């Protein structure tokens, strides 16, 4: 299965991508994830202001037949959630890397070292 893995982003093994700009980390799901899920019909977002631990669940994406938890790549506070996905969850299918889900103000940037590079993530996907 061919899928996009932009080299400018970091990744989790659970198929979230993270874009790092200063201490703000923008998070979404990867092209591989959206393709595996199929038609995404529901995205459950966290409250802005809630705090997340690295690897804790922060939301849910649902396709017609499946429910998948979303895992935070980093510890911090949710500063923004993409409300557009509530009415148009299919955007995650159409443009997974533009359709960010949340933005987190990170409290411990050294956690970013534990995320996968694009090459490592591609390798990870090829082993699934």
């Amino acid at each position, binding site marked *: 299965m061919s899928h996009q893995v932009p080299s400018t982003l970091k990744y989790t093994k659970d198929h979230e991508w993270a874009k790092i700009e200063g201490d703000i980390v923008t998070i979404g799901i990867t092209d591989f994830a959206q393709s595996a899920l*199929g*038609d995404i019909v*529901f995205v*459950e977002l966290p409250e802005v202001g809630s705090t997340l631990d690295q690897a804790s669940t922060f939301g849910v994406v649902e396709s*017609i*037949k499946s429910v998948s938890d979303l895992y935070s790549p980093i510890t911090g506070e949710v500063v923004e959630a993409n409300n557009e996905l509530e009415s148009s969850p299919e955007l995650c299918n159409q443009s997974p890397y533009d359709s960010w889900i949340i933005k987190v103000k990170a409290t411990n940037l050294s956690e970013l070292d534990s995320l996968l590079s694009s090459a490592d993530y591609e390798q990870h996907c090829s082993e699934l």
Partner: protein
Amino acid sequence: MSLQLTSLHNKHVNLGAKMAPFAGFDMPLQYSSVKEEVIAVRSNCGVFDVSHMGEFLCVGEDAEKFVDFMVTNDFLGAGSNKAVYSPLCRENGTVIDDLIAYKLSHGRVLICVNASNIEKDWDWFNEFVGDFDCTLTNLSSEYSLLAIQGPKTEQILKDLEIIDSAEFPYYSVKESEFNGNELILARTGYTGEDGFEIFCSHKFAGELWDKLLSVGVAPCGLAARDVLRVEVCYPLYGHEITDDITPLDAGLKWTVKLNKPEFIGKQALSEYQAKYTLVKLALEKGIPREGYEVLNAADEIIGKVTSGTMSVTANKGVAICQVEANKNPKDKNYKIRIRKNDFEATYYAKAFVTGGHK
């Protein structure tokens, strides 16, 4: 245990279907997208490989009488060449399986059962067949079965000369022939739409599949099949119907004919008070899933979701729910608990979607 393959397995793989184990078979879950497949069936035509289903053939003078004795619905009373849906029950009224029995001709009955229950059903039928003048053959591995469903099905099958212009009412069956291939054509299905189910040889199944796809029929997987049947609120064994409840607990009172002289489970079912009732609930936001709790206005847990999905056609989360009969609220106020949050649900007296079957 290795998975069984249907005769069309290679075709599914070549089409790029997402495959998954189901009832011991490696089955296509979806091809293009579940959504597109559901839309194809509701508006046009889709084909499902359901060759995993089991088939028993009952032949002999008593064939109809035997099947009528085994099932709760009225099989003897149905007209010739009719199909009858029925639960198959134990003496205590609990459900072994649900099935469709087809009156092929006098003394010839085809019984189609759920793939996951083939062995259990076969054993059960064989416990009783000795008392009747008929014999049973398990043809489950001999037949392929294609379900062709959707409003355009009749026209497409006429154009392919699989069916002729003769009257073919809903829930009826005909034995037929096409280029030397023996077919059993049934106007039945599991989507709520008009359509046919065609029992045929493995060899012909591939030819028929290719013919259908070449005229634009959409290949559809089990995921779309499940969405379609939940939208029209058809029960599924293992979900709405289970080994430990009766048909009366699963909204199937209409299939239990207590006025029949004799059938297995009659006495138990005639004395039984249903413990559960099925209710149909929809959510404006969120998607109910199997196992989620159902609550009343006072936040008491009164039941659970037995099947839930996003309805492609109704564009909302829909659920068939099993509620304790004595706790079913008269005010029809229900909530469904999703990940610790309770959502008000809309009660549906009828199915979420009205299929177009004739």
